[in-house]
C-alpha cells in the first residue's frame, strides 16, 4: 500500500510444468498404454470380451453398467462393451487409412511443390488453396456422399481433407532444408536430385511430418466418428464408435449408451494428441 514502486511478481506459469527433463512423463506413458489397449482391441477383440457384438439377450435389454456388462446393454440386450471392442478395428483402421492418404498425397504434393519450385509450385499451391477454401468437414461430407455411405469412403473423404495440411507442412520443410548449405554441398559433390531428396530432405522433414501424422490420426478419429454419427458410415450391425453414440442417443433413459462409446473416443483421441505433443517437444 505504501510502497511507491511495486514490482509485480513475474507470472510463474512455465516452471510448474517442467518436471523430469529426462524420461517419459507419466501422462505420456498412460497415453501409450491407452493406445496399446485400443490397438489390441482392434487386432484381437475376442481376447477382451466373451460376448458377441451382434447377438444379444433380449431379456437383459437396456441394463445399466454392471460387473457382467461393463458398459451396460443396448435395446437388443447386446453387451455394449463387446460392441465397442469389436467396433474398434473399423474405427481405428479407417483413421489410419485417412492419415495414409493425407500423408502420401499431401506429402507428394508438398515435395513436388517445394522441390521443383516455379510453375509446379504455383499450380500445386493454388490447388491446395482451393482444397482449403471448402471447410474441411463439408468437403468430407460432399466426398462421402458421392462415393456412397460406407466407412471406407468416410476414411477416404477424411483423408482428402487432410491432404492440404500435409502438403503445406511438407513444402515448408522442403523449402527450409533445400536452401541449407549441406544440400548445396551435396549438389556440388555431384549428388543427383533423387540422392538429395532421399539423403537430406526426407530425413530432415520426417520428424515434423510424423508429429502431424500422429495429430491427424486423432483428428481423423473425430471426423470419421462424426461422419458415422450422421449415418455416413457402415450401417448397423456395424459398431463404429460414432455410430454407437448415434444409436445410443435415441434412448435417453439409458445414457450409458452414449457415454461409454463417447468416453472411449475421447480417451483415445486425448492419448493420441498427448503423444503428438510429446513427440513435438522431444527433439
Amino acid at each position: 500500500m505504501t510502497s511507491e514502486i511495486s514490482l509485480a511478481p513475474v507470472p510463474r506459469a512455465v516452471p510448474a510444468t517442467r518436471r523430469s527433463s529426462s524420461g517419459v512423463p507419466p501422462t505420456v506413458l498412460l497415453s501409450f498404454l491407452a493406445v496399446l489397449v485400443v490397438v489390441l482391441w482392434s487386432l484381437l477383440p475376442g481376447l477382451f470380451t466373451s460376448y458377441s457384438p451382434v447377438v444379444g439377450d433380449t431379456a437383459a435389454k437396456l441394463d445399466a453398467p454392471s460387473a457382467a456388462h461393463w458398459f451396460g446393454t443396448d435395446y437388443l440386450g447386446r453387451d455394449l462393451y463387446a460392441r465397442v471392442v469389436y467396433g474398434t478395428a473399423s474405427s481405428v483402421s479407417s483413421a489410419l487409412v485417412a492419415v495414409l492418404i493425407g500423408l502420401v498425397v499431401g506429402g507428394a504434393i508438398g515435395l513436388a511443390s517445394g522441390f521443383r519450385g516455379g510453375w509446379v509450385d504455383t499450380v500445386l499451391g493454388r490447388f491446395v488453396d482451393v482444397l482449403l477454401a471448402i471447410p474441411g468437414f463439408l468437403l468430407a461430407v460432399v466426398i462421402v456422399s458421392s462415393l456412397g455411405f460406407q466407412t471406407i469412403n468416410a476414411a477416404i473423404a477424411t483423408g482428402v481433407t487432410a491432404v492440404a495440411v500435409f502438403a503445406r507442412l511438407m513444402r515448408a520443410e522442403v523449402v527450409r532444408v533445400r536452401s541449407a548449405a549441406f544440400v548445396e554441398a551435396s549438389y556440388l559433390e555431384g549428388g543427383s536430385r533423387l540422392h538429395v531428396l532421399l539423403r537430406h530432405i526426407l530425413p530432415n522433414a520426417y520428424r515434423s511430418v510424423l508429429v502431424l501424422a500422429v495429430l491427424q490420426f486423432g483428428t481423423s478419429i473425430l471426423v470419421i466418428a462424426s461422419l458415422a454419427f450422421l449415418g455416413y458410415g457402415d450401417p448397423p450391425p456395424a459398431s463404429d464408435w460414432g455410430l454407437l453414440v448415434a444409436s445410443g442417443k435415441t434412448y435417453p433413459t439409458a445414457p450409458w449408451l452414449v457415454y461409454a462409446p463417447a468416453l472411449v473416443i475421447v480417451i483415445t483421441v486425448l492419448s493420441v494428441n498427448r503423444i503428438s505433443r510429446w513427440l513435438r517437444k522431444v527433439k
Partner: protein
Amino acid sequence: MTSQYKRYALTRAAQAIAVVLLAYVLTFLVISVLPGDSITNSLRDPQHGLSEEEIQRIVAFYGLDKPVLVQLALSLGRFLTGELGFSLQSNLPVAQLIGDALPSTLGLAASALVIAVVLAVAIAYGAHYLPGKWAAVLRSIPALFLSVPNFVIGLVLIELFAFRLHSFTTTDPNSAAATLFAAITLAIPVSAPLAEVLIASLDHESRQDYALVARSRGLNEASLFVRHLVKPSALPTVTMVALIVGELLGGAVITETTFGRDGLGTVVQKAVTGEDQPVLQAAVALSAIVFVAVNLIADLVSPLVDPRVKVRTEVHA
C-alpha cells in the same frame, strides 16, 4: 505504403475470387464425376415422385444429357449470374431454401464465435495468471476440448440441461435457451486452438522488455494485460479466423443435427441423404464464399492491426 497496400489488397481480392470459382469447380467435379448415383438415376427414384415431363425439364435445365464439361460450364455460368437452380427433393428454388436456412445458422455461428472468444480469453488469462496448479489445469483444457467430438458435447449438454435440469426442451430447438446450448456446443472445439494461441502469445509477450518496463512503472498485471498484452496477441488471433470459420461452418452440420435445429447444416444433411446435388453444390459454394471472404478480410486487416506485418504481393502458398 498506401499504394503498396492497395496493390496487395487488389491481388488478394483477385486471388480470393479465383479460389472461390475453382472451389466451385472442384465441388462440381466431386459431386458429378465420382461414382455413385448420378442425378438422372436419382431423378427416376420414385420417392421424388417426378413425372416424365418434369424429369425431361430438369435434364434439359442441367444439361444432363451432355458431357460433364458442358454441364460444368452451364453450372458455372448459372452460378456467376446468381441462378442456383431448383431442389430435386422439394422443387423449391435453391436460393430460397438456403436463404431461409441461413439466418438461423448465422445466428448460431455468431453466438458460438462470441462464446468461443470469451471462453478462450478466460482460459488464457487464467492459465497465465492463476497460481501454479490452477494454471496447469487450465493449460490442459484446450487439449481436452480438442479431443471431444462436437456431437458428444451436444449430447452431454442435452442430457444434463434438457433432461435433468430442464433448462430447455429439445422439442423447441429454436428457443433462446436451446440456441445458447447449441452455440456452446459449437464454441467449445473452436475455443481450444484460440486459447492455445492466446496462451502462447501471452507467454511470449509478457517476457518482452516493454512488459518489464510497464511493470516497473508500477502497472498491475490486470492493466498490463488489457493495455499491452491483448493488442499484440490480437494478430495471431485474427489469422486464426480462417480455422475458426471453417470449424463453425463444418460444426454447424453436426450441431444442428444433434439439437434438431433447422439451418444450413440441416439443409446440407438433407441434400446429402436425398442426393439433392443442386442444393449441396450451392450450400458448399456458399460456405466457400463465406470462408474465403472472411480470410480475405483477415488478410487485409492484419497489416492495419499490426504494422509489423509486411505487406507482400508475391504469391505464397
